[in-house]
């Protein structure tokens, strides 16, 4: 297990009482995962989620290149950490505040491939935002997945607030959030960790450290180069885990979640992952990452690694692999077909849900909603050259980051 403990709080190393229904292992011998209380079914389902997330993600890129969806932000390379961590939560009870790479997290926590895919297409039925947000901004009230926004790191405080509510209302819930290592430098992270630690809130902070914040490498992002080390400054445990090791991530999360649920306070888990794609479909990473580095990073891909581990342990039989593969293929196909066929949002809904109620003085613009004759809504606003200063229809920047 590639967990290197850098615990600062003494309480963090004693075996934590588990509130989950999964059995705790008595020893570290026995079949794979048994020491962690994971059954063969658990492992196969975890594998399915890792592979499903990858398959959905790869399909997104294909659809992007085919011109079906204009933007992709990817979780490739992060799936192992995401499934490992999310598996340790209680689905339907605990809270997760994810970020834009959290496809595998969301799938593990209850969202479906259709949910993910309708977000890419921004359909009216997209459960994350009804087509209002860019792809990657997932969320589901049904599944206790907090709505993602774009400004990084803000969600940490929301998760801390959820943990505060859980503590005050005695619900037994844990709130977990994740973000990149670059994002962890935002002031909100400092303020949130401090508050959560003071009040021993049931909160877990997961950093998915892929070594880059868009183009800026770890050494220029994180002084000291370890986010986990910062935990000690708040008197809470901080550990670094190999993020391509699904079970190591699960183990670290399980410990942190048990600690949180037991009222012992928050923990920080830094999962070292790799970003197998550009930052987003707008990014050319070869400009700042060498070919050798990109090649070397492929060895950190969690999908083949987890597969090999399960095959070696005799858990992922070729029969099982075939079955799972076929199911994933069908699910991705179904999700794509479904999303393709879903209608766009109706512009007449555009002013809904600014507030809980409609306010008479919050009036629509003079052009209404395109359904009256106040002014026509242009179908496609492609202004032709004006005064020798052309504004092209393809004004969208080639390099618009996320």
């Amino acid at each position, binding site marked *: 297990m590639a967990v290197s403990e850098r615990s600062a709080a003494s309480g963090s190393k004693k075996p934590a009482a588990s509130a989950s229904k999964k059995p705790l292992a008595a020893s570290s011998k026995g079949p794979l995962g048994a020491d962690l209380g994971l059954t063969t079914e658990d492992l196969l389902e975890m594998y399915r989620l890792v592979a499903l997330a990858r398959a959905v993600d790869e399909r997104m890129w294909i659809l992007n290149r085919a011109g079906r969806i204009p933007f992709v932000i990817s979780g490739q390379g992060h799936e192992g950490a995401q499934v490992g961590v999310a598996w340790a939560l209680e689905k339907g009870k605990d809270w997760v505040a994810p970020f834009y790479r959290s496809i595998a997290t969301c799938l593990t926590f209850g969202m479906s491939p259709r949910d993910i895919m309708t977000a890419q297409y921004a359909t009216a039925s997209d*459960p994350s*935002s009804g087509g209002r947000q860019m792809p990657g901004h997932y969320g589901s009230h049904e599944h206790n997945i907090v709505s993602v926004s774009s400004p990084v790191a803000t969600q940490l405080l929301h998760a801390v607030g959820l943990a505060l509510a859980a503590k005050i209302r005695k619900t037994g819930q844990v709130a977990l959030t994740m973000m990149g290592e670059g994002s962890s430098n935002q002031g909100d992270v400092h303020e949130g960790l401090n508050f959560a630690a003071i009040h021993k809130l049931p909160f877990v902070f997961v950093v998915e450290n892929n070594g880059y914040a868009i183009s800026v490498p770890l050494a220029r992002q994180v002084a000291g180069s370890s986010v986990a080390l910062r935990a000690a400054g708040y008197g809470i445990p901080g550990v670094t885990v190999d993020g391509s090791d699904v079970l190591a991530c699960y183990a670290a999360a399980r410990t942190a979640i048990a600690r949180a649920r037991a009222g012992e306070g928050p923990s920080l888990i830094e999962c070292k992952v790799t970003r197998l794609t550009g930052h987003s479909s707008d990014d050319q990473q070869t400009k700042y990452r060498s070919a050798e580095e990109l090649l070397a990073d492929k060895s950190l891909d969690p999908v083949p690694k987890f597969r090999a581990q399960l095959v070696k342990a005799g858990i992922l039989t070729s029969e099982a692999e075939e079955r799972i593969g076929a199911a994933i293929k069908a699910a991705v196909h179904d999700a794509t077909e479904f999303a393709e066929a879903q209608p766009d949002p109706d512009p007449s809904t555009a002013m809904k849900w600014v507030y809980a109620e409609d306010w008479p003085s919050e009036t629509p613009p003079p052009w209404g909603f395109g359904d009256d004759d106040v002014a026509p809504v242009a179908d496609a606003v492609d202004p032709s050259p004006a005064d020798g200063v052309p504004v092209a229809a393809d004004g969208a920047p080639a390099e618009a980051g996320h």
Partner: protein
Amino acid sequence: MAIKTFIEAIRDGIREEMTRDENVILLGEDVGKKGGVFLATDGLWAEFGDDRVIDTPLTESQIIGTSIGAAIGGLRPIAEIQFADFIHPAFNQLVSEAARLRYRSNNGYSAPMVVRAPYGGGVHGALYHSQSVEAFYTHVPGLKVVIPSTPYDAKGLLRSCIRDDDPVLFFEHKKMYRSVRGDVPDGEYTVPLGKAQVTHPGSQVTVIAYGLMAHYALEAADRVAEDGISVEVVDLRTLRPLDKETVLDSVRKTGKCLVVYEDNRFGGYGAEVAATVAEEAFDYLDGPVTRIAGPDVPGVPYNHVLEDWFMVNPEKIVAGIRKLAAY
């Protein structure tokens, strides 16, 4: 019915709502044992305990961000920002997060919470303890902004804010805390959001104001009444959503409109009110929609000579009314 100061009415409102609904919690800097630097929450920590009255660290973004999360988790947080001037570190959490959560999630999530903050000048608070910050937030769809001017309204509006399903900013003029008194009934009344009030009927000039300026406007109305100028004062109470109807009805009747605000003039909240009136009541106007507002310097200066120069006061409003009435 009892006579209460402005701050007592606010304290009573918080206490009664906390008693009514155990999901209402209070958090902020020094709100606990100390009861807040203005004592707005005095006694509440003793009454409701550590869990529901939380002395936070000195971190405003955390106060707001945590409140958003707590609201998602089923609580009804009342966050106190010690001075409105110190709400700025929480700007991102308020504008990017609290305001947009419902819209961006297509009504999947919302953040019902109240952010209370003392604002305003005239108390020797200088640049950083005198600010009016409403213009930054009234511009943001998804936020509601309330500024009461009487103990009655303060309590009734605060109740409505706490029960509201959206984030509301509730700004309290600190100069009014102990100097303004008024009748407050005993029962569980509320004052609805989004409704302005005509506090002084008149026929020749409409003066639109809120907060401390609503008092100064009344005083100016009384003074010019001696010269035979009849002023109608509209106290906005809720700045967003703006009660356009009451405002426009009044201006359509009087034909003249003076907008008064304490904040810096350029781009202040009153600019929106003036622009709306100028556009929607154009045919009724017998004079320019005029603004009397704080000078465009970066904050109220400390020295009393400079502070007096800065602050809008009844005399300055009187001068504005006279000029407009004579137009």
